[in-house]
């Protein structure tokens, strides 16, 4: 049934996430290189990103030393129990740390003590959805700290930005967040946005945008238009790769929405660096596949 070796499957999932740059991200960086033009400083910085990722995959070493927070998004069928999945993922996180796929990254917020194995209160993070059919689908994001630090949440209307409670107001918030981030989130990044929700749901939804493929199209036409417009505008900011200047400040913009209460209009902006590490696995009838 795939239960016995569950921790092993999780370990392989973590290894792939930490050491292999996803194909859609590689594609986006290559487009950036073409756009910047051969011989430019920005293009040579972007090439270093690809060279690093090639070396990481070849040696099974982390693409970036900040292997971030482990965020597991799990769709679970009736033949799996949430508890066994969490246990397997925790065991695998500790194992992956021992194998240097992950840096020990879980720090007690009061004592400052590092747990040494990437487990702790709320670490790893899990999000579960129930499926009707048997099986397990897991998507893992490794979200680095530098990029997490440049995320921001806005409350509309915003007088300073002259941003109202509409999509143009949302656009201004995203411009502001990416401008403020400069190169600090290891540009070029991918921007996940949520319009609406409460503060907690807003950030959760903004991060779920990172589960999408960079090449997909938003099913909501108004949001699809805003994604395109922001992609163009953010790349006109001039921050560029590593913040050294250039035309490639973001690799993608993905926007979701949540219903909100009438009194609140939050815009939550999450930033993920170019080392946008994600991997997935599906377990069905004892077979494991990657998609």
């Amino acid at each position, binding site marked *: 049934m795939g239960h016995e070796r569950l921790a092993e499957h999780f370990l392989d999932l973590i290894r792939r996430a930490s050491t292999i740059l996803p194909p859609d991200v590689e594609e986006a960086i290559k487009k950036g290189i073409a756009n910047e033009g051969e011989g430019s400083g920005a293009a040579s*910085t972007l090439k*270093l*990103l690809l*060279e*690093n*990722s090639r*070396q*990481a995959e070849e*040696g099974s*070493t*982390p*693409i*970036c*030393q*900040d*292997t971030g927070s482990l965020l597991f998004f799990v769709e679970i069928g009736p033949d799996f129990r949430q508890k066994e999945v969490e246990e397997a993922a925790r065991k695998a996180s500790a194992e992956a740390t021992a194998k*240097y796929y*992950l*840096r*020990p*990254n879980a*720090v007690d917020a009061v004592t*400052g*003590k*590092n747990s*040494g194995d990437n487990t702790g209160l709320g670490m790893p993070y899990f999000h579960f959805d129930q499926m009707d059919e048997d099986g397990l689908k897991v998507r893992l994001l490794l979200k*680095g700290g*530098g990029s997490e*630090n440049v995320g921001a949440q806005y409350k509309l209307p915003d007088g300073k*930005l*002259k941003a109202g409670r509409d999509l143009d107001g949302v656009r*201004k918030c995203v*411009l*502001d967040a990416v*401008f403020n981030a*400069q*190169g*600090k989130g*290891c540009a070029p990044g991918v921007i996940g946005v949520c319009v609406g929700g409460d503060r907690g749901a807003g950030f959760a939804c903004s991060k779920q945008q990172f589960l999408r493929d960079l090449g997909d199209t938003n099913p909501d036409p108004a949001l699809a238009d805003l994604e395109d417009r922001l992609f163009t*505008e953010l790349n*006109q*900011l*001039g*921050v*560029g*790769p*590593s*913040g*050294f*200047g250039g035309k490639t400040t973001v690799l993608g913009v993905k926007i979701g929405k949540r219903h909100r209460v009438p009194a609140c209009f939050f815009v939550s902006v999450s930033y993920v*660096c*170019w*080392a946008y590490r994600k991997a997935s696995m599906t377990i069905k009838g004892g077979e494991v596949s990657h998609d």
Partner: protein
Amino acid sequence: MTEIKLPVSADEIRKLKAGDEVSITGVMITARDAAHKYLIETDGPEVKEILKDSMIYHCGPVVKKEGDVYSFVAAGPTTSIREEPYEADVIDRYGVRGVIGKGGMGAKTLEACGKHGSVYLSAVGGIATTLARSVVEVLDVHKLEEFGVPEAMWVIRVENFPAVVTMDSHGKSIHDDVAKQSRENYERLLGT
């Protein structure tokens, strides 16, 4: 590409200009938040001799231990601005000639670079495997137990470590230039 050999003199460092690509060889030390606090609160007895005319690397590496030998597996730069409250004092007190990190630092550090003959260098954020390959030897580590792997002070020997001078000792900062240019673009796009 300018070759820099550590230890390096203030005169050599003053020849560097913002925008110069450099390749660094020699012994340097990693230090981030806990280490900077420590360097200010004590006189850093374990590291002060090495720091003189050397460089600090803002990095929290992934480190492998085989027997008694450590090696760096992944070692890209971490965000430098967090050390802004400390760095000018650290440069002054220890005679540090270069600070390597990502994202740039502020006015206080830029001023200290001018005053003491030091530079801030950017390594490309996230290229951890490539940079770990230029760390050819881990010579020592301090405060490993107390600070943990990412925060400990690792004494490392690097060979041809690639970086770009982004803040020089003549008051020029590429980070300030990019921030200024992008602010103009931002204001235009915002329509305010």
